[in-house]
């Protein structure tokens, strides 16, 4: 394997190696100062998780109810626990969620909480039937103390539908590092 090795000023070295496969390829570096990403970079390996609720949950009337997600499908950085996402890598996280519940009898608002307080409202409906609420938000987390939870404001007492992983879930990933 042909390769170029550049020794560090005091120690170590960087080696650029061509793969032993047929064909000619060109690696073009950008005309800018910066750091080249690799498959090990945080931007590539940043936290990602998916969790869902596995049991129906009672929602009390006219209150913001925290949604419980008991089952983790994947959690690449072990940052999701107790229905709370607390990433240990600073950055901007895209969080998506779906809540199946009903029957509603009044206003219902899917809500993103950050650090225990209302942060972003999402879908807001007022009707009297079973329904699913969907939400998405880009949320900055400092990588240490910031955490995200999902709540729903229920205008009337009702229950979530959580018979399997498709009904009530939350997912998120690092969209951009800090």
């Amino acid at each position: 394997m042909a390769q170029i090795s550049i020794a560090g000023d005091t120690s170590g070295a960087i080696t650029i190696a061509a793969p032993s496969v047929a064909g000619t390829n060109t690696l073009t570096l950008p005309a800018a100062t910066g750091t080249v990403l690799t498959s090990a970079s945080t931007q590539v390996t940043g936290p990602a998780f998916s969790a869902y609720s596995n049991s129906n949950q009672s929602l009390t009337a006219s209150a913001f109810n925290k949604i419980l997600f008991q089952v983790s499908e994947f959690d690449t950085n072990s940052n999701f626990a107790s229905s709370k996402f607390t990433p240990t890598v600073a950055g901007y996280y895209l969080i998506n969620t779906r809540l199946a519940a009903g029957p509603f009898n009044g206003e219902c608002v899917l809500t993103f909480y950050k650090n225990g307080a209302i942060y972003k409202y999402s879908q807001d409906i007022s009707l009297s039937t079973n329904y699913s609420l969907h939400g998405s938000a880009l949320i900055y987390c400092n990588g240490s103390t910031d955490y995200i939870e999902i709540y729903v404001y229920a205008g009337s007492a009702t229950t979530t539908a959580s018979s399997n992983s498709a009904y009530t879930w939350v997912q998120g990933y690092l969209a951009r590092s800090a």
Partner: protein
Amino acid sequence: MLYEKLIKLYPSLTPQDFSPNGGTIILQNDSDGKGDYIKEWEHSTLAKPTDEELA
């Protein structure tokens, strides 16, 4: 439920007072078994009830 207790204590309260859209009272339930509680109370004329009044 806390909402029903508040309505009974203050009959003038309406669902709109608790609404995320313009309401001044936030009730919250952290699903930790401790039930509903008053997260914020910023009603312009009614005082936040005491624990004794809600008992």
